């Protein structure tokens, strides 16, 4: 018998999509079944009470979690988010229900033995409920009590050789697309750079010293599978600066219908025979492609590497060989002043160990933002407030047309005194000699 009736949630068991309600009930039941085998360290009925509390929210249309609470592990300022419910008497199992963020391996590949160890640990010392994964990328462990936090951290670091992720005003857990591990579009090893920078900046990740959160995301090509350009304060996006490699035989095979365009992604509908002019050449945003004597020709100098032709004919076209990444900065979700996309700062940098050029950009930006950023101001907002010129100044990067979509619409240039001959100090008497009152 379930501890709480959940007539509303029960209606989310039907339908084909995996039911989180059935999943929660399964978890609740399993805890009761195994309570003689496992010495659960938080209440056995934690999941029952979560279901009960959630049913109440479904009934009332309002949330029942209280505003955070400062909990954590010794020496860290992030990685744990305190959570308490406002109905502790009725739902004591979730009176304390803190979240733990566990730093995931880059691009989320796992061996089952590692995850089994984590399942056992979390079953024993927490609710057994997870998010695989949270939006930022962490493994999210949902629901434990304060006295278990150090124990979990101890087991995680000692037995699993793994650390917590970030939360609060610090470097948030970086994440990468799967990159070179299983993708032919990868312009750099996004997982390796993600790992190396995560290790380099462990202090920034665990000990909040920033004005607000700060995110790194690593997309190995402009397709952007981890959405770096939309959600990272620093977006590292792979690119190349030489020529797209062309296999003319494969081009002919696409034209002849022997190869499926777009890697078969459109197979669910009959779109008619592949038309290279209509589907590739005419859709090229820079009009830099043409067919000449049955051969595909690309004017690479005009190409902006949008990936459309490569995505459409992956067996005929491949990214160039002179590869690296672009650094863009300042993305954030709308709160407060509206959403911002990352802006291009460094058009191209090679990705080579020990990544000094990349680290220099990061650290120059942090020095500036930590000095000038207001409390709870994201990098993009500091950029907006102080101007792109300031960003160029602090990073020592020269302005170039690649930095703008178009030049400014107004002539209100903040000229610096040293840019104007004779400076700003003028003598009114001198002026009056030429212009009497």
């Amino acid at each position, binding site marked *: 018998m379930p501890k709480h009736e959940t007539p*509303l*949630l029960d*209606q989310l*068991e039907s339908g*084909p*999509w*995996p039911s*989180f309600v059935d999943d*929660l009930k*399964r*978890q609740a039941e399993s805890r009761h079944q195994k309570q003689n085998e496992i*010495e*659960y*360290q938080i209440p056995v009925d934690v999941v029952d009470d979560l279901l009960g509390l*959630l049913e109440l*929210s479904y009934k009332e*249309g*309002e*949330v*029942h*979690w209280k*505003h955070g609470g400062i909990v954590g592990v010794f*020496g860290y300022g992030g990685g744990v988010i305190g959570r308490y419910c406002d109905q502790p008497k009725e739902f004591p199992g979730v009176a304390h*229900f803190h979240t733990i963020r566990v730093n995931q391996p880059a691009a989320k*590949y796992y061996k*089952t033995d590692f*995850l*089994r160890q984590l*399942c056992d640990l979390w079953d024993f010392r927490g609710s*057994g409920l*997870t*998010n695989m994964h949270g*939006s930022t990328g962490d493994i999210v462990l949902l629901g434990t009590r304060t006295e278990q936090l150090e124990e979990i951290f*101890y*087991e995680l*670091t000692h037995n699993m050789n*793994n650390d917590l992720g970030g939360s609060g005003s610090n470097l948030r857990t970086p994440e990468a697309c799967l990159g070179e591990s299983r*993708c*032919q579009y990868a312009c750099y090893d996004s*997982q390796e750079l993600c790992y190396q920078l*995560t290790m380099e900046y*462990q202090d920034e990740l665990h000990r909040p010293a920033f004005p607000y959160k700060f995110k790194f995301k690593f997309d190995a090509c*402009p*397709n952007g599978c981890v959405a770096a*350009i*939309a959600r990272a304060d620093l977006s590292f996006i792979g690119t190349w600066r030489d020529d797209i490699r062309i296999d003319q035989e494969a081009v002919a095979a696409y034209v002849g219908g022997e190869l499926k365009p777009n*890697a*078969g*992604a*459109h*197979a*669910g509908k009959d779109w008619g025979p592949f038309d290279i002019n209509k589907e590739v050449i005419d*859709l090229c945003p820079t009009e830099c492609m043409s067919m000449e004597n049955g051969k595909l020709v690309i004017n690479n100098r005009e190409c902006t590497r*949008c990936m*459309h032709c490569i995505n459409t004919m*992956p*067996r005929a076209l491949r990214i160039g060989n002179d590869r690296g990444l672009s650094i863009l900065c300042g993305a954030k*979700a709308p709160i*407060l002043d509206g*959403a911002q996309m990352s802006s291009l700062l460094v058009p191209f940098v090679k990705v080579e160990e020990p990544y000094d050029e990349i680290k220099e950009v990061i650290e120059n930006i942090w020095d500036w933002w930590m000095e000038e950023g207001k409390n709870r101001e994201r990098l993009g907002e500091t950029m907006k407030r102080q101007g792109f010129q300031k960003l160029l100044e602090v990073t020592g990067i020269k302005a170039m047309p690649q930095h703008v979509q178009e030049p400014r619409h107004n002539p209100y240039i903040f000229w610096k005194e040293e840019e104007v001959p004779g400076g700003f100090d003028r003598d009114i008497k001198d002026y009056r000699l030429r212009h009497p009152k």
Partner: protein
Amino acid sequence: MAFISSGYNPDKPMENRISDIGPRHFSEFLPPVIKNNKGKWLWHEILEPGVLMHKAESGDEVYTVRVGSARLMGVETLREALDVADKHCDGYLRFTTRNNIEFMVDSKDKVQSLKDDLQSRKFPGGSYKFPVGGTGAGITNIVHTQGWVHCHTPATDASGTVKVVLDELFEEFQNMRMPAPLRISMACCLNMCGAVHCSDIAILGYHRKPPVIDHEEVDNLCEIPLAVASCPTAAIRPSKTTIKDSRTGEEKSVKTVAIKNERCMFCGNCYTMCPALPLTDAEGDGLVIMAGGKVSNRISNPEFSKVIVAFIPNETPRWPQLAKVMRQLVDAYVNNARKYERFGQWAERIGWERFFEITGLEFTHHLIDDFRDPAYYTWRQTTNFKF
């Protein structure tokens, strides 16, 4: 329930302490076929919905079966996924950014039994545990946030709304008949932990009532200047009021804040700074639908999503209006967009006046931007419009 120590000694927290070790290096977890061919992949093909094949220079092939999952997952179901990985994939698996699970095998003859095994597993209520799909020009898993399950600021539930929408659109998860990928995202409040602002279609929880002020607690729980400063529209000012003490019953003067309701944009930033200013309200809270965003640079630049439905109420447990609107949007897109056209590119080509006509959505004054300078540039400054 006896407390069992991990070995941690609370009296000597620094004893044997391990910290700042970061995550495990990903190379420990790569399946052999992936590890051997890293950086040497030639091309890939989607063999059928949910099944990918990547070909390496060495001639090796890796077959990936992708399945959806509810992001909220207990370790019992997670262990079941691990059992599948042990049985078919030599103990390896991975998760995608969009909360799918990928099972990889190194030869084609292992695919069918893996797929059949995954498709056959169901929950008691009849839903799939691991539905195969989510590839190519179709709908993949909806990324989402915590909602009522675990957050303090949501205006709706995340798991429930996503379940309802993916039930409604399930056949699109297992098909690839769209003009281009259709990425749907869900965030349960404006903080957008899910960063839904660049999605083809975004479902966003939103409050519509200004904070209710707990005068008794404002000065106890909050730094009043921080609460004042947190408001982007300067609707909050310091104030004083007289209240009856809930314990002694005596009248007393307290420091608090006052709010100009007409200036409130319901963002909830004040509540983040000050727990005595809650926004949640059953009648006020609900959903906004945004559309037309993308993050890919393909053909056109990344774009923000635009608000196309100002409000849908929280009709628990199955949000019928939400499901209906999502169906309208998907059908209109499938039937009208050109091949390779993302949702927003389609809307821009036909024009937003035509978009509202075709989708059957009502255009109301709520959809005209009036927030700060950028709003001006979203009004129509041309005579080029359609009747």
